[in-house]
């Protein structure tokens, strides 16, 4: 009995990284925001009493029992539009992570209210967003990668010089999310087998030729349709393979280690990104692909982050020494931010005012030079300073990867150096009494 209770306790309450759910919160907000903004011109038309579906015709579209929507009481077109704007605002706060719990609840309740008001424009992606939103609302920890968390980190780092331990949460919301994605794929797969076109391999060709969905000209779809059986059967295989995740780990121990060491879940997520990404590129199916990517983020746990980091760092050796001014408030903020974004764990921050620490890592650099600009020392021994240091650092901070190409546009570097120089020049003209040197 004790063993059973321990197993149940572990199954529902073992601690996992909360990073996946933090990213899922951000992704949910981003996807919702994109489609909410796209839908702004149609708000009154789709969701108000003056639009396509007045309440008197509602019985033709939605159920009447157990239907909760704020739009049952808010029917005036102007009020509906204002409520939609409130939804957009709360989603923005949810995205950046200010009051994440409250903003998540508001965003999910409002989104569900709009969805329940008119089902006609909704697609599979909208359903996924509702389901995931509910899990986010009840999950015990969604503050990872949030503004609120960053503030807590800053307070801790200022005093202790190190970041807080990563956030953890009980695994039960992850179990709910995994169960949800299994339902999506398995029930969908079963349904497909009851037809004829999925089994005879002609389905993808037909779908690609439907102009309501096709993004590209038909002559291009004619060519792609030759691959219809491959895409169709591999999609069915992908959907049913998720079923294997229901097999308990102590049963999979019989599988040879050479196969067991690779995570089936990660491979399925990778193929899912490829499949849904391909669907998104070729077809307009609303938010479905992006909503599924949102679920995938929530399924990433501790060992997945380790594998992702190890894979990206497989050719990386050493660390980048970042020398910053530990008595300058602005520099402290900058160093803290860089540390926060160091998801690949490649940086080592050193306060150059600590002579012993500085001598250990960069004895050749003089304090006067370090005082003029941020310096970094790469594992190769080369140093970079100022804007060039920032440019080099961006390659190693995943959240800034999208920025990297822009930093190499013609003209950006000279302007960057100029701007950096001005900021560095003025950083010591502090009026808060925090820029005293030893």
């Amino acid at each position, binding site marked *: 009995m004790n063993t059973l209770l321990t197993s149940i306790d572990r199954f529902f309450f073992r601690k996992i990284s909360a990073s996946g759910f933090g990213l899922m919160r951000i992704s949910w907000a981003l996807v919702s925001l994109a489609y909410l903004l796209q839908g702004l011109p149609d708000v009154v038309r789709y969701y108000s009493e003056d639009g*396509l579906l007045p309440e008197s015709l509602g019985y033709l579209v939605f159920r009447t029992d157990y239907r909760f929507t704020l739009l049952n009481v808010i029917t005036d077109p102007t009020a509906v539009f204002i409520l939609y704007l409130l939804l957009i605002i709360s989603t923005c706060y949810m995205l950046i992570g200010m009051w994440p719990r409250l903003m998540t609840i508001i965003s999910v309740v409002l989104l569900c209210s709009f969805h329940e008001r008119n089902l006609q424009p909704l697609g599979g992606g909208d*359903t996924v967003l509702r389901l995931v939103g509910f899990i986010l609302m009840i999950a015990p920890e969604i503050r990872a990668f949030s503004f609120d968390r960053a503030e807590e980190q800053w307070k801790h780092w200022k005093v202790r010089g190190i970041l807080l331990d990563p956030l953890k949460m009980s695994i039960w919301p992850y179990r709910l999310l995994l169960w949800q994605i299994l339902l999506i794929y398995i029930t969908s797969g079963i349904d497909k087998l009851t037809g004829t076109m999925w089994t005879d391999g002609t389905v993808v060709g037909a779908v690609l030729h439907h102009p309501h969905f096709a993004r590209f000209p038909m002559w291009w779809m004619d060519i792609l349709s030759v691959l219809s059986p491959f895409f169709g059967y591999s999609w069915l295989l992908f959907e049913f393979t998720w079923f294997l995740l229901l097999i308990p780990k102590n049963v999979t121990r019989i599988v040879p280690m050479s196969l067991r060491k690779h995570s089936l879940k990660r491979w399925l997520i990778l193929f899912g990104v490829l499949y849904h990404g391909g669907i998104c590129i070729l077809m307009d199916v609303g938010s479905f692909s992006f909503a599924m990517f949102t679920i995938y983020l929530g399924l990433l746990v501790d060992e997945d982050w380790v594998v992702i980091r190890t894979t990206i760092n497989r050719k990386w050796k050493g660390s980048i020494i970042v020398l910053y001014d530990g008595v300058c408030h602005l520099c402290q903020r900058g160093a803290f931010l860089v540390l926060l974004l160091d998801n690949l764990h490649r940086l080592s921050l050193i306060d150059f005012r600590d002579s012993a620490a500085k001598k250990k890592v960069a004895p050749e650099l003089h304090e006067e030079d370090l005082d003029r600009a941020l310096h970094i020392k790469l594992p190769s021994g080369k140093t970079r300073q100022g804007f060039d240091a920032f440019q080099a650092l961006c390659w190693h901070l995943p959240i800034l990867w999208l920025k990297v190409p822009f930093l190499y546009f013609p003209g950006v570097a000279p302007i960057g150096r100029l701007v950096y120089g001005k900021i560095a020049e003025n950083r010591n003209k502090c009026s808060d009494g925090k820029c005293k040197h030893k």
Partner: protein
Amino acid sequence: MGIRSAGKIAIVLFCVIHMAAVGAYAAPDYIPEPLKTARQKIVDVTSPYIFTTSQWQKWNLFSPDPLRRVVTFHIDRETKEGWEEIDVIGPDTVAWWHKATELKTIRRMEESEGGANLNALRERYILAYCKDFADGTKLRLRRLYYVIPHFETLPTIAQWHAFQPEWTQDFDVQVTCPST
């Protein structure tokens, strides 16, 4: 029993009920007995929870077979010279930013679960055009559609190239613009 243990039991019970509820709701209707009876019992008990929390779901996107009917809505206005087309709602005419939602809306206006007559919805749809016309103007909905073929064997590129849609037209609902 401490509060912590009670809390854990409550969470476990909630998870089990939630997973059973969404699982039963999402499961197809045609599963064999005794699963079908068990499913129906669970759905009957948990549907208030499923509906109130908007957890309802059916994953029949492009299944059992994908949608092959391609429809466009044409709005006509009656003039002295006859009927004049004033708008087309189709894949080539709807703006990109609401193509998915608008085309889904017109498709859903044709579908009906349980055979309910959706004429009133389509009438409402074309009544929206009355704001541009005088009272008493007659508007009608004309639908053009074709069906993408289901080839019995995998078609070649040439067969797809050769495919020409066979459009069918039908005259649907008609409204008279009311006085405001």
